[in-house]
């Protein structure tokens, strides 16, 4: 990889242009489309039609904007993190603070849009899948706000990893259904949600959480999430007078990444870098790096890259991050990868957790473990590009939900006794040296990846 030779300093704020993809039937090149039972086509057509009418309706635009401002707290700020950036080759690092949104992640951006759409098509019940629980919490929140009944499907494994979010959803009045089929994670929760939808489609809308699934979800969720990049592009231009050299985001299904990438897609000088969950390492087979380690196929209603075996069976993914633990990826990412507009690299659990600790210690921000993958990629890319580089990172969520996982990772207490308090200052936990040294990710040479 080479650093970009030209800073696109002449770029000016542009009104958001909608990408020319997907086509009318939901295809991003060869990716996307609709691979679902015929029984769901009528509902998908209804959603598509209602959404296309709604997105240009001034009343909707005004209501959506008001909710984003008054309820979510948009625009989210951009924060420079110089102490963190010292570990990133001296590059300057700006965080887009989606962690500060109401409910704690970017997921609220999408669910408010889809909840308004649900109301518009006259349905009273919403269902959702969730991995880390952030989309489930956001959907339960929007359902409470708009008086909709809400059922959230969550893999049984994830209900254990993210017990806090299960409790939040229940407090918000949602029914949480633990899914016990297959790998008991996000992919199986999606299967169960589709089964619910096909059975109850007359009164139920499926509020899909990411830029995957059948048309219109990838395009619709992108449109609802692109506010991240639209804001960030203007914010960076205003404070720096130039665009960033690279925009980085973690990629599971890929909604926060598409959200921050979309505004920058036309800016050829800006590298778009997606960080996939490398788990134990892509070479071990225990990972969730779909584009890095997968092949094109069909899963959950769309053609995209996916982790699959020779029989075409989906391979169970592995990641410390429940929100990235998904063997598929949104079709627009597959498309951006294949046309060479975006690049995708894996980050291991260990690298992500080092970056997680580093942001906690240097900046006083506890990131979601998902977002920590983007931070790890930033450390690498900063070292590659050096002190002149300006990097924009989507801090897609906050880490409150991950306190137990992180405490266990760092040996700060056992499952029943999560009290990281003074332990954070002792030298008993393993990354102390790395975090306080000048090199937080030993063993990863500049330019190796990212």
């Amino acid at each position, binding site marked *: 990889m080479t650093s970009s030779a030209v800073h696109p300093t002449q770029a000016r704020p542009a009104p958001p242009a909608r990408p020319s993809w997907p086509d009318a*039937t939901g295809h991003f090149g060869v990716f996307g*489309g*609709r*691979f*679902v*039972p*015929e*029984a*769901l*086509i*009528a*509902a998908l057509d209804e959603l598509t039609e209602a959404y296309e009418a709604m997105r240009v309706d001034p009343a909707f635009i005004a209501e959506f904007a008001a909710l984003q401002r008054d309820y979510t707290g948009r625009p989210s700020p951009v924060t420079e993190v110089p102490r963190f950036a010292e570990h990133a080759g001296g590059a300057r690092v700006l965080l887009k603070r989606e962690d500060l949104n109401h409910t704690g992640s970017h997921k609220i951006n999408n669910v408010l849009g889809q909840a308004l759409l649900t109301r518009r098509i006259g349905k009273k019940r919403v269902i959702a899948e969730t991995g880390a629980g952030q989309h489930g919490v956001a959907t339960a929140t929007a359902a409470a706000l708009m008086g909709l009944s809400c059922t959230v499907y969550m893999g049984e494994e994830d209900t254990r990893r993210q017990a806090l979010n299960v409790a939040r959803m229940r407090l918000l009045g949602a029914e949480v259904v633990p899914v016990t*089929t*297959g790998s008991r994670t996000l*992919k*199986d929760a999606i*299967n169960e949600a*589709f*089964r619910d939808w*096909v*059975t109850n*489609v*007359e009164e139920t809308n499926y509020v899909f959480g990411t830029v995957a699934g059948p048309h219109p979800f990838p395009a619709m969720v992108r449109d609802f999430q692109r506010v991240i990049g639209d804001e960030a592009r203007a914010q960076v231009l205003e404070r720096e007078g130039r665009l960033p050299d690279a925009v980085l985001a973690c990629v599971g299904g890929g909604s926060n990444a598409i959200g921050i990438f979309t505004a920058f897609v036309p800016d050829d000088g800006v590298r778009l870098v997606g960080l996939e969950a490398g788990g134990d390492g892509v070479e071990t087979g225990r990972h969730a790096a779909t584009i890095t380690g997968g092949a094109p*196929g*069909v*899963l*959950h*209603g769309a053609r995209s890259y*996916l982790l*699959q075996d*020779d*029989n*075409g*069976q*989906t391979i169970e993914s592995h990641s410390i991050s429940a929100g990235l633990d998904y063997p598929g990826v949104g079709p627009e990412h597959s498309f951006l990868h294949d046309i060479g507009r975006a690049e995708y690299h894996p980050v291991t659990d260990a690298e992500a957790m080092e970056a997680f600790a580093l942001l906690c210690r240097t900046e006083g921000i506890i990131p979601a473990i998902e977002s920590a993958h983007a931070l790890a990629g930033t450390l690498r890319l900063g070292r590659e590009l050096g002190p002149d580089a300006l990097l924009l990172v989507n801090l897609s969520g906050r880490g409150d939900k991950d306190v137990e996982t992180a405490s266990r990772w760092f040996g700060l207490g056992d499952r029943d006794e999560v009290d990281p308090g003074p332990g954070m200052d002792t030298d008993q936990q393993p990354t102390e040296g790395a975090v306080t040294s000048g090199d937080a990710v030993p063993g990863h040479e500049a330019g190796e990846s990212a």
Partner: protein
Amino acid sequence: MSLLAERIAAARAEGRAALIAYLPVGYPDVDTSIEAMVAAIEGGADALEVGVPYSDPGMEGPVIQEAMDVAVRAGVGLRHVLPAVRAVAAAGGVPVVMSYWNPIERYGVDRFADDLAAAGGAGAITPDLIPDEAGAWIAASDRTGLDRVFLVAPSSTDARLAATVAASRGFVYAASTMGVTGTRTTVSTAAGELVARTRTVAGDLPICVGLGVSNGDQAAEVAGFADGVIVGSAYVREMLDGRGAEGVRALSAELADGVRRAGVRA
């Protein structure tokens, strides 16, 4: 000529609807599942849907999911379907593959069509492939003369019914209810309505009804308005409960009696 349409026409000539059984290959293991498929034919089924195990079967209820899960974990895949197809054909049944799309795409659409045709298979039913996305499969099945069965549902618009029927060969699969596979105590009223709507655009294409039929009485009821009756979860239940090939044979006999009770559709 379509193997499936021929067999359904032969049933009609006997004054009855056709009986189409479903069993996934690989539950509890490949050999036992093939024995059960042969027993289903010997017991009176006309055709057999040879199910391809898949890790993410979005249209299946818990019974078929459970059997598929065992088969998937044992590494059973599309290549194990070919011996099952040959065995069903040898037993005098018409074998048709039932597969979610990704296993076929991974195997290679053209390779699948060639191998299936060579094994004596009639064609394939593709529950998550709509004609809109089926260009490669339509070309491959035309080239090899295989049947391709698409699904219609109670929610299908008239325009989609017409397009789906036009793309189908062998028969069109009418999914009788909005929902997943599984036994139900009654046949949905939507089934008759859907068949009637489909009939207006189907011409000579047979219409077979699936989802929720599990016993002889329900088979008789559906046979009163459809050209074929598709039974899946009830067969798989026999396997899950350990009654094996003999249970499957007895179920076929009960269902075959059912499709004869209704008398031929006018």
